[in-house]
């Protein structure tokens, strides 16, 4: 009996790591850069027309559309971007840059 209870408790321990697992939220937005600020942020106009201020951090990753490395200085007005925001809804985890809007 004790052995059965012990095994059940251990199984519950193991299964609980799966049952309550839940990934953190990340938000992805597509849009066009409308302004690059000097304070480490930029403004973008999302595809739904709304404006969004994006903060960047030392850990933000910048990429061109072909996957090659980019940097904050490559951001320019009119550039298309895909931004993945961290859970705080403000800070970019990654910024992918494409061509200017036609």
């Amino acid at each position, binding site marked *: 009996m004790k052995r059965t209870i012990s095994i059940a408790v251990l199984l519950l321990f193991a299964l609980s*790591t799966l049952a309550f697992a*839940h990934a953190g939220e990340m*938000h992805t937005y597509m849009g066009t850069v409308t302004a690059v600020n000097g304070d480490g942020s930029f403004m973008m106009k999302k*595809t739904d027309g709304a404006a969004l201020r994006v903060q960047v951090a030392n850990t933000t990753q910048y990429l061109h559309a072909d996957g090659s490395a980019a940097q904050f200085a490559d951001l320019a007005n009119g550039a298309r971007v*895909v931004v993945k925001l961290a859970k705080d809804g403000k800070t970019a985890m990654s910024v992918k840059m494409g061509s200017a*809007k036609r």
Partner: protein
Amino acid sequence: MKRGALALLAIVAVVIVVATITIASMLRSGLSTQGEPTATEAFVARVVRRWAVPSELRHAKNPVPLTPAILAEARAHFADHCASCHGNDGKGEALGKQMYPRAPDMTLAATQSRSDGELFSIIENGVRLTGMPGFGSGTADSAYGSWTLVHFIRHLPRMTPAEIAEMELLNPKSPEEWRQLQDERAFLAGEEVTAPPPSHPHHH
């Protein structure tokens, strides 16, 4: 004989006290995976995990030669099998951060200081009572894949954004995530796409 009985009694008493403290702690916090393991739990887990690695493996060196091709193969393997919990950069900022214990930041010394054989053993055999499954099947193919992953784990502290971007394309995806990726590519290429709702990629 009397001394032996007393020693046995003392051991039983210690076991009962430890068990009582453990059960009391569980009753207070339930079986929640929130919070960090206590220092005692972490210490015991580290010691037991080290003991659990077979001695012939503990000091084993990686028998698979390290080449750019092997590293690329391991990167793709990691993106497909491991990144959903460990993250593409191995820092544990994925499903693994909701587990108890948390998936470790494998770029740090706690992982990097382990021997090749210890890392191989963990990949092959998993770690009980954690989210880490054993991926080994006892075949030469399985062992080869795990040794190549050991090379990739050694490379994690030097990952580049381009490597991570490449891995994102290889991560397992739902049909919705594939659609979103195609939309993003088309958008960055200058095509018009309809405005999708903000993504909330949850994994249950």
